[in-house]
């Protein structure tokens, strides 16, 4: 082997590492140190193919995967560095139908760029949004975001532009941008992928938000379970500061903005925005009463934009390409694209960014390829642990905020977890309640006590399935469970207790017979 080193790309995304990417990278370094330049990227989100090795050739980036560390020698011998044929060769990933059919706006750079390289970011369209924003007035920036139709991607789907307008309208003085990176929903990983694979997009989005509302300080509230994201963000923040993309004089504009990262301590409730603010201020992560809205009285009592990672990372493309460009994706009141996260018992899990309107069936079967077990798919849970279970009979439902709420379901943060016909749905209802019991902050009674009482009721119902009797009678327990759901739904202080009835009731509605027998 001689000549200029060949560039190889291996992901350092936590999901890829879990599948062996670090061992593959180490093996490449050991066996081909002089012949290759190894770039650690984010992941494209085709997790069933990870670890993927991509080789830069004259014909483009040729991928191989899934690659085992012990295959490296053989791959090198058979000409991988020239893009030669091999059983593991995938060809150009950009042409792979799974990726080619996606509409990647927010996740466009994932798996392609070096997350620590600002030059890579700039070469792939990065900071075009900020350049545009620096030439605009704050109210014009807010208007573009409003017109784009962007809604909060963390779950509540509140129109982002309206939230920003509220913060902009508050009297001058300290204001904050607080990024919610406490991605705690089961089966979700879009925030993590973005922070690990394209952290500058979040930094750019937050900077634009700061310019829009007159905030000069931003905080990323990052869950402690994301150490790779913490490292990637820290690196990118340093580079952005060194190159004048953060700090006291943004790109010579005289405007200032900087970002600090704060780590959570492992509480799901701190993903609820007011608990997150409490935690950011150094207090017990307990829900605040609203009003006042965080947009009026948020972090340290000041007007605060609270948005999640995907929302903020979607802003640069909107500013760079215009409100209309973004709004033209999607359907009804759900505009733009959503990075869906497909997980659970599914053959091809990963990140699917598409315009709103893709049906559950298309996602689970066309992208997911059905269950990993090969058994029939029975249900999906959409929107995290507090999302409803949707049975296979309803898989023609489009993934859009309004369509799902019409089915008493939620889109949430866009996580879709697949279950095959062996899933015990009564136990899934129990899981929802026990999750709430473990994660409840303990402030309000319906959530603090109701979740545990719910677990106890479901435990009794499960113990007496298949014709078993019990005391109290099963019919009384079923009625009590229903009443409990009502009390939690209407009585809880925040979405944790208030939404836990969604999965429970969806099981009662669609799989009630599983409470009777299995």
């Amino acid at each position: 082997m001689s000549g200029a080193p060949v560039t190889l790309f291996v992901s350092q995304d936590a999901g890829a590492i879990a599948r062996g990417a670090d061992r593959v990278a180490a093996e490449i370094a050991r066996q081909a140190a002089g012949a290759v330049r190894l770039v650690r990227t984010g992941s494209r989100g085709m997790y069933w193919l990870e670890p993927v090795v991509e080789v830069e050739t004259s014909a483009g980036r040729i991928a191989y995967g899934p690659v085992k560390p012990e295959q490296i020698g053989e791959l090198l011998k058979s000409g991988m560095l020239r893009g030669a044929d091999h059983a593991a060769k995938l060809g150009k990933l950009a042409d792979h139908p799974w990726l080619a059919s996606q509409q990647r706006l927010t996740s466009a750079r994932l798996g392609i760029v070096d997350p620590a390289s600002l030059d890579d970011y700039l070469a792939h369209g990065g900071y075009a949004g900020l350049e545009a924003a620096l030439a605009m007035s704050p109210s014009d920036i807010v208007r573009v975001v409003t017109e784009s139709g962007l809604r909060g991607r963390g779950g509540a789907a509140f129109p982002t532009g309206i939230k920003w307008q509220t913060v902009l309208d508050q009297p001058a003085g300290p204001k904050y941008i607080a990024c919610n990176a406490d991605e705690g929903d089961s089966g979700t990983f879009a925030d993590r992928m973005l922070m690990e694979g394209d952290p500058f997009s979040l930094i750019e989005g937050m900077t634009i938000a700061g310019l829009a509302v007159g905030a000069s300080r931003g905080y990323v509230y990052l869950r402690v379970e994301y150490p790779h994201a913490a490292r990637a963000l820290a690196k990118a923040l340093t580079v952005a500061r060194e190159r004048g993309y953060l700090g006291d004089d943004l790109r010579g504009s005289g405007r200032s903005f900087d970002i600090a990262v704060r780590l959570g301590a492992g509480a799901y409730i701190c993903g609820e925005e007011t608990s997150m603010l409490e935690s950011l201020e150094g207090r017990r992560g307990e829900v605040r009463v609203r009003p006042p809205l965080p947009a009026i009285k948020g972090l340290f009592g000041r007007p605060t934009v609270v948005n999640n990672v995907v929302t903020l990372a979607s802003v640069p493309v909107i500013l760079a390409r215009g409100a209309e460009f973004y709004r033209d994706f999607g359907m009804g009141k759900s505009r733009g694209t959503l990075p869906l996260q497909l997980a659970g018992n599914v053959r091809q899990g990963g990140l699917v960014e598409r315009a709103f309107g893709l049906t559950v069936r298309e996602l689970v079967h066309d992208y997911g390829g059905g269950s990993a077990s090969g058994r029939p798919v029975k249900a999906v849970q959409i929107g995290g642990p507090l999302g409803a279970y949707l049975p296979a009979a309803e898989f023609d439902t489009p993934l859009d905020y309004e369509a799902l709420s019409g089915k008493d379901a939620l889109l949430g943060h866009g996580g879709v977890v697949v279950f095959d016909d062996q899933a015990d749905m009564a136990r899934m209802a129990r899981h929802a309640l026990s999750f709430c019991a473990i994660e409840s902050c303990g402030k309000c009674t319906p959530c603090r006590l109701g979740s545990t009482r719910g677990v106890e009721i479901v435990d009794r119902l499960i113990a007496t399935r298949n014709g078993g009797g019990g005391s109290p009678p099963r019919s009384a327990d079923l009625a009590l469970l229903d009443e409990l759901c009502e009390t939690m739904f209407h009585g809880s202080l925040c979405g944790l207790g208030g939404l836990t009835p969604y999965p429970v009731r969806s099981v009662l509605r669609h799989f009630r017979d599983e409470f009777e027998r299995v």
Partner: protein
Amino acid sequence: MYAKDYHDLGTPAASGASVTLEIDGATVTVPAGTSIMRAAALADRDVPKLCATDTLKQFGSCRVCLVEIEGRRGFPASCTTEVAPGMKVRTRSEALAKLRRGVLELYVSEHPMGSCPASSRCELESLAEQHGIAASRYAGPDTARHEHTHAPIDASNPYFRFDNDLCIVCSRCVRACEETQGTFALTIEGRGLESRVAASQGEPFLESECVSCGACVEACPTGALLEKSVLTAGLPQRAVATTCAYCGVGCSLI
């Protein structure tokens, strides 16, 4: 625990411009910034409450003070919702009664009726009784209760004792310690069902930063924090206003 005839308006007074609204059909005028709970109490339409008391800032945790407001979805808490001009509030309805019973039954699953040594003065037991709850359907032999402190009863303080079993985690003691006394000796530790009142870093009251001022005992709606004298001598038969002679400040006492 307050004197029995004290009319607790639920939240502190506000001092804004006058706002007129309708509560259960009656016209009420109160200063802007007043909570619906206080406005209703001033109009003798008291809303049930457990975590609210007019000596402390509104907190919104007990969820028995929920009301209906025309044109608004759901059931907002009356303690944390401020009045607005022309607002039409309903404090009583079938749905509200059901919801309040639902919440109270959850409370009673942990704090059985009659368990308080000061039952007649226990705000929870009185409220549950008013709502026709004698027992909780949630309670059974396997019902989990919030975790005991190392010693369920902390009798270390010479003047009062804390019985975690009777605590409903309303945070009134924590807030009184913080807002009234400024001592910050109390906190809630743990989360979910394991949330419990702790003095300093989970120490016995006597060894903690507690200064034995009694604000927490006064604020407690149940018998969780109770004067030892009540346990030995029973509840007071009458109340008199007097002045504390301990130091030169001369705080008035009832």
